[in-house]
C-alpha cells in the first residue's frame, strides 16, 4: 500500500495501534556480513509475539549498504503481516536521506526521527530546517523522538526543543511522537502539546503503568519501538494483552496483567537495563532479551556494551518470576544465534524455529 505524504496523519490513526518492537541485525560467524536467515527469524518472531510493527535498529555498526539490505530483508519477510520502520539515528543527514529513499522503495511505512551526534544546532530554527528537509524528502510517516541523547537541553530544560517541535508537528507526514524517557513532566508536556495533533506514544517502559490514563486523557494507542519482549513471550503475550485490554476500556483486566508482570519490571529496570541514560543502547542485552523468548540471538558488532553472566541470569530470573520458562540452552548458544546453529546442525532454519516455538 502506498500512502502519500499528505495522507500520513490520517493513515497513522488507523495503522499505528499496538506494540512495535525493535529488531536488531544478525551476523555471520566472522561478523563480516549480515545473516539473512537470522534476520528473517526475528521478523517471524515479532509476528508471533503479536506486535503490529517492527523497527529496524540500523545504528548497530552497519555500513549504509548493509543498513539498506537489513531493511529490505525485514520488509520482504514482514510483507502484509507487520509494518516496518527504522531509526534515523545515523552518522549524517546525508545517510539518513539515502536510507529514507531506500526504505520507502523497500516497503517501510514509517521511521523514527533522530539527529547525528555531530548536529549541534545553534537555534530551534536549525532543528526545524533539518527535520523539514528529512520530512519533505519522503512519503513515509515520521515519528518525532523525545530523547535526551540529542542534548537539546539548552533550548528547554526538558531537553525537548518545543519551539522547533511545535512547527515540526505541523508537517503533513509527521505522524507521531515517541516519548523516550521517563520524566513525568516531560511526558505531560508532550501529551498536552501534541496529543491532539498527532499520536503521542508510550516510548519507554516507565510509562507502561500510566497507559490507562494516557489512553483516557489523550487517546494514546501505541507503544513505539522498544524491547517489549522484556515482558512477554509468544505463548504469554502479557504486554500485548495489556494493551488490548486498555484499548477496550477493560482497565481491571489490564491492571491484573500489569501486576502479573511487575516482578520482571522490578528485576530488569534496576541497574540491569541501562542504556537510555548513556545515549547508547545495550544491543547485546537487547538481543539476549529477544533470544530468551525465542528470538535468533547472536553477537553484535563493536562498539557495543558488554553482556555479562549476571545480566543473563537476571533476565532468566525475571522470566521465571512472570511464569515464562527461559531457554533450555546454555547461554553460550546465545552468541551463535539460532539460525546459524540450525545450519550447523544441518537443520532447515524454518523447521528449527517451529521446533523452538515459545
Amino acid at each position: 500500500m502506498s500512502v502519500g505524504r499528505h495522507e500520513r496523519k490520517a493513515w497513522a490513526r488507523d495503522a499505528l495501534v499496538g506494540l512495535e518492537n525493535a529488531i536488531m541485525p544478525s551476523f555471520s560467524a566472522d561478523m563480516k556480513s549480515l545473516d539473512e536467515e537470522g534476520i528473517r527469524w526475528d521478523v517471524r518472531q515479532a509476528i508471533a509475539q503479536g506486535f503490529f510493527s517492527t523497527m529496524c535498529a540500523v545504528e548497530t555498526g552497519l555500513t549504509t549498504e548493509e543498513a539498506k539490505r537489513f531493511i529490505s530483508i525485514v520488509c520482504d519477510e514482514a510483507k502484509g503481516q507487520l509494518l516496518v520502520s527504522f531509526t534515523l539515528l545515523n552518522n549524517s543527514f546525508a545517510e539518513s536521506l539515502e536510507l529514507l529513499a531506500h526504505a520507502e522503495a523497500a516497503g517501510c511505512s514509517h521511521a523514527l526521527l533522530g539527529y547525528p551526534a555531530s548536529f549541534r544546532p545553534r537555534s530551534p530554527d536549525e532543528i526545524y530546517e533539518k527535520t523539514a528537509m528529512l520530512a519533505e524528502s519522503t512519503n513515509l510517516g515520521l515519528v518525532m523522538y523525545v530523547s535526551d541523547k540529542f542534548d537539546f537541553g539548552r533550548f528547554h530544560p526538558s531537553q525537548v526543543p518545543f519551539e522547533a517541535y511545535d512547527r515540526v508537528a505541523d508537517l503533513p507526514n509527521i505522524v507521531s511522537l515517541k516519548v523516550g524517557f521517563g520524566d513525568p513532566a516531560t511526558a505531560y508536556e508532550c501529551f498536552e502539546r501534541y496529543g491532539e495533533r498527532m499520536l503521542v506514544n508510550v516510548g519507554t517502559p516507565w510509562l507502561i503503568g500510566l497507559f490507562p490514563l494516557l489512553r483516557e486523557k489523550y487517546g494514546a494507542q501505541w507503544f513505539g519501538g522498544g524491547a517489549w519482549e522484556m515482558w512477554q513471550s509468544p505463548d504469554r503475550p502479557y504486554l500485548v494483552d495489556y494493551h488490548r485490554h486498555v484499548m477496550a476500556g477493560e482497565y481491571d483486566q489490564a491492571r491484573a496483567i500489569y501486576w502479573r508482570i511487575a516482578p520482571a519490571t522490578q528485576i530488569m529496570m534496576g541497574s540491569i537495563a541501562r542504556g537510555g541514560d548513556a545515549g547508547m543502547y545495550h544491543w547485546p542485552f537487547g538481543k539476549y532479551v529477544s533470544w530468551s523468548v525465542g528470538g535468533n540471538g547472536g553477537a553484535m558488532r563493536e562498539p557495543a556494551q558488554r553482556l555479562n553472566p549476571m545480566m543473563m541470569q537476571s533476565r532468566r530470573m525475571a522470566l521465571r518470576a512472570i511464569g515464562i520458562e527461559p531457554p533450555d540452552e546454555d547461554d553460550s548458544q546465545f552468541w551463535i544465534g539460532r539460525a546459524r546453529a540450525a545450519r550447523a546442525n544441518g537443520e532447515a532454519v524454518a523447521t528449527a524455529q517451529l521446533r523452538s516455538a515459545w
Partner: protein
Amino acid sequence: MTNRVGAGDRKSWAREHFNGIENVLMPSFNPDLTELDEEGIRIDVRQSKRHGFFGSLCSVETGLTPEEKVRFVEIACDEAGNDYGISISLAGDTLEGDLELLAAAEKAGATHGLLSFPQAFVPKSQDDIYDYGRRLAESTNMGIYLFVSDKFGFGRFHPSGVPFDAYEKLADLPNVVAMKVGGMDAGMIYECFERFSDRLLVTSVNIGLIPLLRKSYDVRWTGAWTAEALQGPDQPHAVNMMKALLENRTDEAMGHYWRMAPALRTMMAIMAPLMPTGAYHWPLLKYQQWLSGGNGGLTRQPAMRVFQHNLQMIRGGLAAVGVQCPDPDEDFFLGRSNVARLRGGQAQAAE
C-alpha cells in the same frame, strides 16, 4: 479550622489543611551531637513557614531517644503555632513506642502522623497490618496518613508492595486522612489513586507527575519531602507550582516546574540511587535546607556520609534555579545556630 479537632472531623479538616507542600524537619544538635539544639530546630520551623509550606513532618527516626523525640516535636509545635501543621513519622522501633509518641505529640499540638512499620514487624497477613495501623489510629485524635513505601517489605501481599486489602480497611477509619505514595512505579501510583482518591487525599512524591495526575484526580498536596532541594523562600518555585496547579493555572505551573528542573535533576542524580536502601540521607537533606537559610548541621550516627562532590552538585543545582548561598560549606557542618553562638552572636542573627 483549628488544628485541634476530634478524630471524627479529621477527614474534613485534612481537606482544608492539605494544600500545597509539606516538608520534612530533621533535628538539630549541639556541636558534639549529645543534645538537641532547640534554637536550631526553631530556625528550621520558621524557615519552613517562610518557604510557604503548609506543614512539616518531624523525622524522629534520626537517632533520637524516646524523650528526645517528644522534645523535638514539642519544640516544633511550639514554634509552629496554631496556623501551621506539624506531623510526625511513626517510624519507631515498636508499636508501643509509637503509641507513646503519638500521645505525647497530640498533647504537644501535632496534627497528623505518617504510618510506618518497624523493621521487626513481619505480618503474617494483611489483617496484621490493618490491626497495627488501626491501633495507632484509634489511639489518637490526630490525622493519620498512610505511607506507600517499599521499605516495609510487603511485596508478598501484592507485587506493588502495597498491602491493598489492609489499606482499603484503614482508609475507612475516620481519622485516616491521606496517602503518601512514596514509590516511582507508574502503575503503582495509578493504582493507588484509582483505589483511594474517593476517600483519601492521595499524593505522589514525584512532583513532575502531579500535573498529569490532576487531569484525573483532585491532587491537592505533595509531601512529605525536602522541597527545599528545589527552591528558596525568595524563589519558591515548587510552592508556586502547586499553588498555580490548585488554581488551575497549569501553564504557569509548568513554567515554575521548568524553572526548577535543573535542581530537580541534580537532586535525583544523588538521591535516586539511595532510594532502594530504605534509609534517608539526613545530612544531605539538611544541606539542601541549609543552602537557603535552614539551620543545617549533621545528624547522629548511624548516618550516611557527606562527600564534597555531592555538596558541590547540590549547591550548583540550586544556584542554577536562583538560590545562591553565600556561606562556606564548613559552616554547614555545625549548623547556623551553633556557628552564631560560637562567634558570640545570637542564633537569630543567622537568619
